[in-house]
């Protein structure tokens, strides 16, 4: 079980962590949204929770809680630009469908 991050995304995470001044890494998880869909959670981590798994890629620590891991195992995190927007994007091999706005996904 593992998550990966691209070089570009890792660089952005590192920059954001350093400008924030503190933090162990980033947490990637899922939460339920809508009635059947799930949405990604992406936040800074100041302290580890019981059961958290820590993956390291390109020098960045990615922290995942065990419940979320089953849904996002194998996911690759990238940093992309879309027009005037930029941000992180996940490529999740488990996701079977995405909703129109891409906010939530289902694992069918």
């Amino acid at each position: 079980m593992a998550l990966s991050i691209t070089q570009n995304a890792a660089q952005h995470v590192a920059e954001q962590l350093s400008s924030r001044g503190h933090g162990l890494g980033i947490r990637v998880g899922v939460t339920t949204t809508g009635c059947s869909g799930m949405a990604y959670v992406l936040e800074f981590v100041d302290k580890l929770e019981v059961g958290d798994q820590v993956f390291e890629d390109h020098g960045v620590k990615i922290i995942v809680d065990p419940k979320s891991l089953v849904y996002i195992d194998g996911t690759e995190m990238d940093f992309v630009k879309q027009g005037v927007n930029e941000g992180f994007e996940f490529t999740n091999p488990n996701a079977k469908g995405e909703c129109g706005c891409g906010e939530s996904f289902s694992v069918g």
Partner: protein
Amino acid sequence: MALLQIQEPGGKPAKVLHRLAVGIDLGTSNSLVSALCGTGVETLPDDNGQHLLPSVVRYSADGSPLVGYAALSGLVDDPENTVASSKRLLGKSLSELQNLPQVLPFKFDPEREETSPAISTVSGSKDPVQISADILEKLKVRAEQCLKGELEGAVITVPAYFNDAQRQQTKDAAKLAGLNVLRLLNEPTAAAVAYGLDSEDQGKVCVFDLGGGTFDVSLLSLQKGVFEVLATGGDTNLGGNDFDHALAQWILQQAGYNAELDFSERAILNQLAMDVKHQLSEQDQLEISWQDWSGTITNTEYSEICAELIKRTINTCRRVLRDASLTINDIDNIVLVGGSTRMPVIRQAVASFFSKEALTNIDPDKVVAIGAGIQADVLIGNKSSNNFLLLDVNPLSLGIETMGELVEKIIPRNTTIPVARAQEFTTFKDGQTAMSLHVVQGERELVEDCRSLARFELRGIPAMVAGAAKIRVSFQVDADGLLSVAAEELSTGKKAEIQIKPSYGLKSDLIEEMLQSSQENAQVDMELRSVKEAQLEATQLIDAIANARSSDGEILNTEELLLIEKAVETLELAMKDSSANKIRELTEDLNRISGDFASRRMDLHIGRALKGESIDEVANSSS
């Protein structure tokens, strides 16, 4: 997928870019709420997994009303305080309510006026708006729990035949329930949207809606994503209940039962009939027993039992087609709505009448709510603008009065709304500092034949020669048909605006009448318009020449002066009763004759300017 940003821990989990909006099918018997969940729009269940909410409200002395399944028992135990089918009560006066075919078990509040009836309950007077609001609020709470967030808007469906008062009361009920109404959507349109028929270029759709107690047929015409209701028909007292009743009668007859049924026997028999109906949707033959009788029933027998009822529905289809001047060959799609359309006997009857299979793969109970949910998601802005659905059109053209009592149409009829259009106008007289705007609605060319909506004035236009000022008049019609008109003088930015509700008080037959009169009078109107325009051009030229003569008349010799005067005279005479062509011809003559005068004036002014006269003096002398 949406791009994510890293959030602070414990903050809001994942930024909700998605704005929550729901679709609500506020039905006569049952209501539903739907929203975008994951990949598609689905109806939302309550805590017990039930999607349908019976449209029943029971009021009690101790405050909060019971809504839905919890209120059902009240129909038997506490009929005076339990209201079902409140949708039938919307927009009706007291006498209309008392003349409804159903016997209503409640007391009406005698204090209320004829036009705003209310039911007296143990928890006070409740008007139809309040009752509908209680149902809507229940659905709102369900949606907010399910979607875990506050709703930003809702699309609520109404029957296509709902009039202004009924639509307004539906909106009022939503407001009372704390819902922001994005749009009221016609039920048949919602059903067609659920099947994605709006993405087709064009076509005609028949929506066949047989619910628990009402039957509606609507014919929709689709053009570039816009639905127009061509015709509707139906029977407000025909539904699944009547099929149950017919079957119950048949069972009694088969069983040779002649005695009066008591209340509980009747309830058991009705339940049996309903069960048989449901099972016959799954299988073709069924064993049934009631009391000491037992027998079998097939779908063929069932269709004979219901033949009369089925015939009524098909006759309605035929009538609606005729009203829209269409034949079955014109119909591209048939959409089935309402639980009763699950009956194979109905599906067969519809398919054989239209010689075409109906669309059935969406649950007919949910299809309207799903369509509303799809529309809500689009209207709240979760979809990009290129697949924005424009589902309504303005029924009559909107425009303003221009000189000569002519109508300049700014938004033509059948334009999809929301829409904004602007046009530039100018002043007609030299030094004109105010402009009166008269907003009118209709298809005719002359103001007096159109409907006046509003008048307002734009003041503070800087004094300029006629035609120099630029006044931008913009018309905006929002999704609910609310029109706002604004006028702005572009050099100074002076503005004036007004808001109007154009369809208010306009009955559909009046719209029809206005349309018809415009078609009948199209030729006459065209000619009238042409004459008026020619007269205007002539007046403008005559005015300009008179101005020029008073300032620079000395440069003309007597002969030239006479020639011009004569041309003006001829033109003025012709303006009174000649054709547009004649007036134009004479205007052209005058223009030619005075052309030399105009160019000499130009030389004169340039000469003066070169001699050192200030521009101001030149300008003053010519105004």
